[in-house]
């Protein structure tokens, strides 16, 4: 019973954060709402038994990536988001988005049946063995990707002189 209440609480926080992201006109409020979504997702990962992913979520997503976002927002400081005229197509758009949401949710929920997660947590040791044996090549490829991204970011953000 208690895990279900924790799930409900974290899920409500995540959805509320996502709605705040859409609603707020201050980019910095949107960024903080996204941090709220990521932290509640980390709690949910802990609840489903994936402690390593939960830690990575907090450190990399909520820590590194969102700090980068907040940093850029504060560096540029363009203030409130401009609102444009409300398009007539927005209403059908929202309806279609909700239909998409309902359809994906329905299909996904049916594909899992009534399963629950196994009782033991996913062990970080097994995960690391899989990562460094079976997935060694993709792992190395992502390290090269990170290197290229760092170079690209440096080249793009450089002042033209």
């Amino acid at each position, binding site marked *: 019973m208690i895990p279900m209440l924790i799930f409900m609480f974290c899920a409500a926080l995540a959805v509320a954060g*996502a709605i705040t992201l859409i609603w707020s006109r201050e980019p910095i409020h949107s960024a903080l709402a996204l941090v709220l979504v990521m932290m509640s997702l980390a709690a949910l*990962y802990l609840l*489903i038994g994936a402690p390593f992913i939960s830690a990575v979520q907090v450190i*990399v997503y909520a820590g590194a990536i969102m700090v980068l976002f907040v940093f850029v927002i504060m560096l540029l400081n363009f203030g409130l988001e401009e609102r444009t005229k409300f398009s007539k197509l927005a209403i059908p758009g929202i309806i279609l988005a909700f239909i998409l*949401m309902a359809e994906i949710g329905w299909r996904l929920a*049916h594909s899992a049946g009534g399963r629950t997660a196994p009782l*033991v947590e996913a062990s970080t040791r097994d995960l690391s063995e899989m*990562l460094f044996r079976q997935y060694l090549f993709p792992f190395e490829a992502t390290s090269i990707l990170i290197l290229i991204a760092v170079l690209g970011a440096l080249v793009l953000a450089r002042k033209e002189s």
Partner: protein
Amino acid sequence: MTGVIPISWYLVLSAVLFGLGVVAFVFKRNVITVFMSIELMLNAVNLAFVAFARAHNRLDGLVFVFFVIVVAAAEAAVGLAIVIMLAQNRQSLNVERVNLLKL
């Protein structure tokens, strides 16, 4: 503690977050918040990956989540560099002002 909650609850939450991410992507007018809605969609997909990996008691899904997070970090670095360049050239972050490729 881990074996109580049905996996389908996680999948429904993932679908809801993905839908909200799509809505945010279409509705937001600021380049940075559009980027943030992409991150929201990636998070929703990660949640589905973890839920399926736990449902089948496999670790492959968790490895994929790890890779998705790494790629999201690289994407955020390059994307925000592009945003900074855009702000320097256009003095605005409104996506409607960035219409160079529009017919």
